[in-house]
């Protein structure tokens, strides 16, 4: 079983569009939506939830007003300015528990709290593991790891060849959790200065963790010069370009009709995304033969 994560650095370059297309194209996979704080893949794949579980990420401090003698010790030790007027601001609290250690009256309790849900679902394109992190919650990295773990378990049970992971934007903890230990990353970028800047940073993260990267240039015709620059960057850094996708308003039409760009005919876009999947699959298989 091989794992692929679709990432981008910059948001809105087309990760989820590409992932949904792969879900249509592949015939042996489990999908994992690891953009847990703004998950969108379910809007296309229309899952039927088979299992729903609560997610407890971390703990949070709660002060018992009856025991509190307002000595200010908790305020003094808190590094996150989370305690005001002897109440804990749940948004600022990092759950470190130092206030509970410091309180001479034992007035601070560390309470586990539910910070989201995760789901196992069935879709027309196979199984999908996904999640919803509560609003303004922390521990997205832990939830990403959990979703990936569930997807892997199903893939093993159902003897599926691939886990296809839709990653979050950025380079921080949920991204690191979404890419750790996968076999290949597909970085979807766009020929804009922002896209290039962010691609370079996310490739940096991939190199840091020693994960191979293939690049896909979306809307490449918006700026052909920048597309050439990305291709130059890729050849310099020994990254394969998996494909170049045209800008086509039908891609949005497909999204509005809740279909992938393979299910909703988008002409050249559908054809190129198909070729990108073939190259990704080839690369995943090639990695396999190299390993064995």
């Amino acid at each position: 079983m091989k794992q692929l994560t679709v990432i981008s650095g910059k948001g809105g370059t087309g990760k989820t569009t590409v992932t949904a297309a792969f879900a249509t194209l592949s015939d042996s996979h489990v999908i994992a939506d690891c953009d847990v704080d703004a998950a969108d893949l379910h809007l296309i794949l229309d899952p039927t939830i088979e299992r729903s579980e609560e997610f407890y990420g971390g703990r949070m401090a709660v002060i018992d007003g009856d025991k509190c003698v307002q000595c200010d010790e908790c305020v003094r030790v808190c590094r996150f300015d989370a305690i005001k007027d002897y109440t804990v601001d749940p948004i600022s609290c990092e759950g470190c528990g130092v206030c509970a250690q410091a309180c001479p009256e034992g007035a601070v309790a560390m309470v586990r709290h539910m910070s989201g849900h995760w789901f196992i679902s069935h879709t027309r394109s196979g199984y999908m593991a996904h999640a919803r992190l509560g609003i303004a919650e922390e521990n997205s990295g832990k939830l990403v790891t959990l979703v990936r773990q569930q997807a892997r378990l199903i893939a093993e049970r159902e003897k599926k060849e691939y886990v296809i992971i839709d990653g979050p934007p950025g380079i921080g903890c949920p991204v690191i959790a979404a890419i750790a230990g996968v076999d290949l990353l597909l970085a979807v970028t766009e020929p804009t200065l922002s896209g290039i800047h962010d691609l370079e940073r996310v490739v940096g993260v991939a190199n840091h963790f020693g994960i191979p990267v293939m690049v896909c240039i979306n809307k490449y015709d918006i700026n052909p010069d920048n597309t050439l620059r990305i291709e130059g960057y890729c050849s310099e850094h020994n990254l394969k370009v998996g494909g170049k996708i045209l800008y086509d308003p039908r891609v949005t039409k497909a999204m509005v009709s809740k279909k992938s760009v393979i299910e909703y005919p988008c002409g050249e876009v559908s054809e190129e995304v198909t070729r990108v999947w073939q190259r990704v699959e080839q690369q995943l298989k090639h990695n396999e033969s190299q390993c064995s």
Partner: protein
Amino acid sequence: MIISVASGKGGTGKTTVATSLALSWGEGLFLDCDVEEPNAHIFLKPHINERISVGIPVPEVDESKCNFCGKCAEVCEYNAIVVIKKKVLFFPELCHGCGGCSYICPEKAIREVDRAIGVIEKGRSGNIEFIHGVLNVGEPMAPPLIRQVKKHINTSTNGIIDASPGTSCPVVEAVNGSDFCLLVTEPTPFGLHDLKLAVEMVRKLTIPCGVVINCADIGDEEVARYCENEGIPILMTVPWDRRIAEAYSRGIPLIDVLPEFQNSFSQLSAAIERLGRG
């Protein structure tokens, strides 16, 4: 007044709106708090004149004083410190810098040292004071760096905060405490879904908000309908225009390529002035 710009979904035009809003003022403070992927400098082209390394306090164990009692490992909520027999292992990327281990150590064997996680760069773009944070590649935790960027806010100057996409800790850290949050979206199912999450977030933080619809003609009417039902004002719409997309791709601000938007941004500022708190 401090205005934050957020979106839920990525790539909807936060930076486009935030930078052109700043340029329409021609002054004030601009804080790029998308420290994972900061892009505003590409458009504002600031002259950077100061770089400050930002770190978090992490433990350094003096093994000559340590008796390997394991209390530090017990207290660490993040499993960043582990004691195995006569060895203390530390995993810097997991450490939140809470100081719990050094606080609890009965032998006073732990002192805290600064570990760099990123850099703050300060400069000017015309009369706009520009500050952004750049998280080191491979570093998981953005919020401590965002907190440091936001320390540069002063109440006497109007400011704009550009946030990262999503609705979890880095976005909350960036948006929290601002007087108004501008939510930039696109009229698509993804745009709408993530806008709803962003609205929930700003409501939880009790920040007044308004919406900018970008690429206003590409999708459907659902975003406009949602805003109407929820009583959220739509403060500006920007059409999909190849000229805007191409200018964006070259790092040219919206307001420079379509100067007629100067007026729209002035109206936007006036509307925010009316709706914001403070």
